[in-house]
């Protein structure tokens, strides 16, 4: 037994060295990580916020002259005008290359009985192919369509609990996902009270309505708004003076979905019935 070898390093000395080594490793890891983030941030700034999954051949990114701090977008859905044609869902699917079986927007059909006890709701294929007439087992008092999209909430839980900050809210009020950072944990999908998010089966990242960010930053409407033949879906900017959509929201009788959750949606509804959740 070589005693000299076995007692070469006193424990206190060892502890000190171990602490130094661990500290060193920690610094290197943090620094390299931080550098990566910084580089990513630099790239980020060049194109301002990047929308999520882009459509085929569609120019993803934001024009250089676009300043998100000069806009606050607002979305208004006039339920009384919707005919359930599904043009909006089809337009969204084409514009954003939405995978089959997943929806960035959809339409629900409500049929309510005269005694108010039966509420028949459906949304076949998200309303993409329109709605077929339906025979109900009860006398119908009213029936209506309700288009749904991401509510782009101001106090949104999806951004609050994204562990890596891939979900974020742009200064113009649009909730976006940076798919280069998303780790695909699905926490935001669980957190959205409206079912607006899904994990994209190809990119394996969170995907959702971007209000067609690539279009609205170029002064265009979201695809669903342009496709709507009845003016059900309306798109406005509350930073724009005299914006007709914002005027309807502030001066009209509007409603938001699940107001009790206090997520402060920026998608408003005109003529919404209480059956809708």
């Amino acid at each position, binding site marked *: *037994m070589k005693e000299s070898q*076995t*007692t*070469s*390093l*006193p*424990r206190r000395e*060892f502890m000190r060295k*171990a602490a130094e080594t661990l500290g060193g490793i920690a610094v290197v*890891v*943090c620094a390299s*990580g*931080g550098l*990566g*983030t910084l580089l990513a941030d630099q790239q980020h700034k060049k194109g301002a916020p990047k929308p999520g999954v882009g459509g085929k051949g569609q120019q993803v990114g934001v024009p250089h002259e676009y300043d998100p701090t000069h806009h606050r977008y607002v979305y208004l859905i006039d339920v009384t005008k919707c005919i359930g044609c599904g043009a909006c869902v089809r337009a969204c699917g084409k514009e954003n290359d939405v995978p089959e*079986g*997943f*929806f960035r927007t*959809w339409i*629900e059909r409500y049929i309510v009985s005269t005694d108010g006890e039966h509420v028949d*709701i*459906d*949304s076949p*294929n*998200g309303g993409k192919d329109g709605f077929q007439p339906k025979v109900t087992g009860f006398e119908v008092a009213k029936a209506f369509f309700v288009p*749904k999209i991401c509510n782009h909430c101001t106090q949104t*839980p999806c951004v*609050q*609990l*994204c*562990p*890596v*900050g891939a979900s974020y809210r742009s200064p113009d009020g649009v909730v976006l996902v940076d798919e280069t*950072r*998303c*780790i*695909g*944990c*699905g*926490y935001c*999908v*669980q*957190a*959205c*009270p*409206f*079912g*607006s*998010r*899904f*994990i994209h089966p190809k*990119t*394996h*990242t969170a995907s959702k309505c971007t209000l067609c960010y690539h279009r609205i930053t170029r002064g265009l409407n979201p695809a669903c708004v342009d496709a709507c033949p009845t003016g059900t879906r309306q798109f406005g900017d509350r930073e724009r003076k005299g914006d007709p959509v914002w005027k309807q929201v502030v001066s009209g009788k509007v409603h938001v979905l699940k107001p009790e*959750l206090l997520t402060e949606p920026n998608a408003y509804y005109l003529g919404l019935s209480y059956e809708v*959740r």
Partner: protein
Amino acid sequence: MGPEVIGFSFPNDVHVTWSLMIVMYPYITGLVAGAFVVSSLYHVFNRQELKPIGRLSLVASFAFLLFAPLPLLFHLGHPERALNIMVTPNFSSAMAAFGFIYGFYFLLVLGEIWLVYRKDIIDRARAARGFRRRLYKILALGVYDDSPEALRIDKRIVIILAAIGIPAACILHGYVGFMFGSVKANALWSTPLMPVIFLFSAITSGIAMVLVIYATVQRFAAKPISGECIQSLCRYLWLFAIVTVTLELLEVLSLSYERNEEWLVVSILYRDHLAFSFIGLQMVFGSLIPIILLGIVVLMRKYLTDPLRNMIAFVAASILLIQVMAMRWNVVIGGQIFSKSFRGFREAYRPELFGREGVVVAVLIMVAPFVVLALINRVLPLAYDEKREAARG
């Protein structure tokens, strides 16, 4: 074609985003926390009757800890970005805390194990030859001071680490419960009780797992099972099982009594969709039976022979392990069976068999800690060597 839906679901709500892997994750993390609490009963609170499992529980906690993040990695859409949780954390996210809590706890358990085994490592480094000698020399980390004074200091640090470890283990698992409890969109998850329920069921599963491992190992090694140890574990297990089940029932009770919007969906969920896994597996088979069995062990001690008591304890602990697994399943999967429309349910979720998030992977992940435990046992014995201790004085 998507899954079948009863009632009306939001069209994106028919997918079960959190799969079997996310059932495994809180289960394994719970075993980590629970086993650590058991080891602390010996190391901090000096329950001498638990000495036979003092080391076993600590090392078991570590073995499960090694594999706790694995289900998450299998689940992530982009596992290569997993470290971003620590590099670019979003501090308002509950999930972002995982890396830090896990890292802290990992170092703490590793440090405690090293100190607990230091004397053994030094002895073996001096006695062994060849490869084993080199291995123990590496494990000794160059420190060979085994004077009584040094060992006394070791013991004190172990107590401190184990004492810090208790709240750390509680935070580790309370945090897992918080991740579910803080999702206000989900009618089943969103309750402040959730972290508490997770915590207590974690401790229950940890005690049960240590009991099962101890009884099995002793049996296969043809060594005597300490009756005192089993009796004591049963007392703790009984207590924690009762508290766990009470909390789980309280949650259902308060939901049903408040009759809020949540109850619309949760009542149908339990009655129609989780009838087997919640009422049958979690409550009747998984809770009622072991609580009665453990009650017999604790209250009728003098009427039971040692082998009979050990067998009842083993059966009760095994059932409780199933109970906790069922609870994880019912929370994680149950919370995704219904839509946030509160009006629709998808068909039952069946995990795939061979896929990345499938049953085979889950079984392998569950087996892995035991393999590690067996390997560690070959290098650093999990049982205290009474003879050597006696010889050492």
